[in-house]
């Protein structure tokens, strides 16, 4: 189930239970995704749904300073709904950053940067916080001045672009 990292602090038995809970959430989420109309989905769809669940939980735990053991208590579907809300809030906080970046680029006259920013704008329309939170529906052509850190799943990172005058921009980091 690939729970290492987040579950490093759990005992072996707790890690097994964590994996079982993720499986339970995947079954529940798959039924939501298919609206109960299909008993099966493509393997790639299931993998994407699972990556979304893991990322949403990770972001929620981090924001609320919760232990991964939280998943082992109570109804996991309640926790996942709360995690989805956390993801929506974080996306909402990113939008003003993007809008500020767009205002800054008007002075840059850099085509690569303009196109990248336009693509990121599409992200806010296409990003699925409920089922595919680990997928980043946009392209980045603009060369980052610093190597973006990669991690497990997708995370939003604020990076200094190195553009004269400097400004902070939330860059989506592609999933590993």
């Amino acid at each position: 189930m690939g729970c290492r990292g987040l579950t490093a602090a759990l005992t072996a038995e707790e890690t097994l239970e964590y994996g079982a809970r993720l499986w339970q959430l995947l079954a529940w989420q798959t039924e939501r995704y298919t609206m109960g109309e299909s008993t099966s989905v493509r393997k790639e769809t299931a993998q994407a749904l699972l990556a979304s669940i893991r990322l949403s939980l990770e972001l929620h735990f981090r924001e609320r300073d919760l232990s991964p053991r939280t998943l082992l208590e109570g109804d996991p579907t309640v926790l996942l709904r709360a995690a989805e809300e956390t993801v929506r809030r974080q996306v909402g906080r990113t939008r003003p950053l993007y809008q500020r970046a767009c205002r800054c680029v008007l002075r840059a006259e850099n085509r690569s940067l303009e196109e990248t920013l336009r693509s990121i704008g599409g992200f806010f329309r296409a990003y699925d916080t409920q089922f595919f939170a680990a997928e980043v529906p946009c392209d980045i052509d603009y060369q980052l001045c610093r190597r973006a850190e990669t991690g497990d799943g997708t995370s939003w990172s604020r990076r200094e672009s190195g553009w004269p005058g400097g400004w902070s921009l939330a860059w989506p980091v592609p999933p590993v």
Partner: protein
Amino acid sequence: MEEHLTNRQTETVRALEACNQKTAAFGLTLTGEEMEALAEGRERALADTGRVEFGDGILPALIDALCDSPYLQQSDWAETLLSAQAVFYHWKEEAGDLVPDRALLAFLRRAFDGARGAISYLEGFSLKELRERKEETQWDAED
């Protein structure tokens, strides 16, 4: 992950035991050995088509869709189900996520009766080919 697969086969067999009670009215029942073969067939078919499934899977609904067909008999009930299950998953993979199971099952039943119970006939066609043969272009909203 392996632990879950083993549990799933057990769940499949339990679901089939429940189905037996209904299909007995049509003179169709499955032995324990046949149920295990169907459970194993489910895993193979899912692996072959690259699909993931939870819960009891499609078998109970498939049994429900077929059991009152006039072209079924006890002697080949298990074998028919095994083949029909494989056909369903291949067609599901071909149809994509937009076609609900109930629509696909309804079509499978129509095709099965149209072939007078010759499930092997259906195995030779893709979903697209068979629908073209039967001149079906839209999925019936009532399916």
